[in-house]
């Protein structure tokens, strides 16, 4: 039996109340990637972002080539944008699936879209999930760089800075 198959019971073991989602805790791909990382390889690209006085990490990102200031937010599942910001970036909302989410400021109707290309420094992610708030002025003050982007990279935070690094190539 492959090792990762036997991890299934962990979904139960570690599932928290209110978060009963089945998940795949340690994908074998992860482990292979890490084994590859242990071997000497070409240096990986990385970006270091200092925290501001409130502990937030602001980045200058490029979405489909358009520069945009964003805030790194591990509490957001996806890149999170307002309608006007999305228009500036040339995102076609009509193609997105409509969905409802709850935010700290109340429920919002969103469109789930894919961003072709999101770049921070030399780091590039393609086909990244983004949530665009439909209600005219109810989006975030600045776009939020959420987990759909962050999970593509290794993230290290400490001592007042965040470093994003390319994941090891397999």
């Amino acid at each position, binding site marked *: 039996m492959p090792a990762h198959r036997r991890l299934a019971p*962990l979904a139960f073991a570690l599932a928290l109340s209110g978060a009963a989602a089945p998940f795949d805790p340690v994908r074998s791909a992860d482990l292979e990637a890490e084994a590859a990382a242990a071997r000497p390889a070409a240096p990986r690209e990385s970006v270091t972002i200092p925290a501001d006085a*409130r502990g937030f990490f602001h980045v200058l990102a490029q979405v489909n080539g358009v520069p945009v200031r964003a805030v790194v937010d*591990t509490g957001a599942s996806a890149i999170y944008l307002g309608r006007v910001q999305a228009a500036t970036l040339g995102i076609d909302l009509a193609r997105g699936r409509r969905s409802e989410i709850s935010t700290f400021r109340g429920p919002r109707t969103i469109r789930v879209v894919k961003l072709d290309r999101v770049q921070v420094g030399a780091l590039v992610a393609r086909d990244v999930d983004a949530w665009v708030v439909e209600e005219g002025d109810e989006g975030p003050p600045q776009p939020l760089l959420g987990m759909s982007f962050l999970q593509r990279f290794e993230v290290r935070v400490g001592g007042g800075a965040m470093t994003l690094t390319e994941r090891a190539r397999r």
Partner: protein
Amino acid sequence: MQTRQATARLILAALALAAAAEAGATSVLLLTAGPGRAQLLVDDSTLRGLRTGERSPEGVALVTATTESATLIVDGRETVLRLGERNDGKVTLFADRDRRFRARVQVNGTPAIGLIDTGAEAVTIGRRLATALGIDYAQGRRAKLNTVVGPVPGFLVTLDSVKIGPIELAAVPAVVADSDAADFGLVLVGTSFLGRVHFEQRGNRLTLIPWK
């Protein structure tokens, strides 16, 4: 003769122990366990399945195991881990289906579910949950909070203790949001906590590391 052999054995054992201590920090995370078996993540990179009495190439041995915990020998030392626990004072979290990291958190000793959130400045809690956690927020200073999703009215308080696994911080700035919308039952573990630890995220795993 027997004494000499015994002494030699003792010296060997001592040397083995010293070597183990030197090699030192082998990290072990207990992923799953059942009677007589356990699945471990060793040094954050290698998956090992052990049966009672077996020893991994890293020198991690399984002594006993139940469905809730395992007794191991790590670096020559007996260590009892419960499911999901590590032996090195760190905490590993796994992403949910929505890609976010939730954690069991204790606020002033009372358990709740937290969300690792670099987009929240203080540890942030809705009114209803704050009441359930016994936080007397009415004593706090009223403020308009500039959150990453926009302004939210609330109360500034200081929590005596916020604890995730073995990582406990004292005097943690927190905010109780004065809005029904914010009552979704999660403690947002924001930068007032995260700024006082280290953390690393790789794929679907996030590890909190205490500040030394």
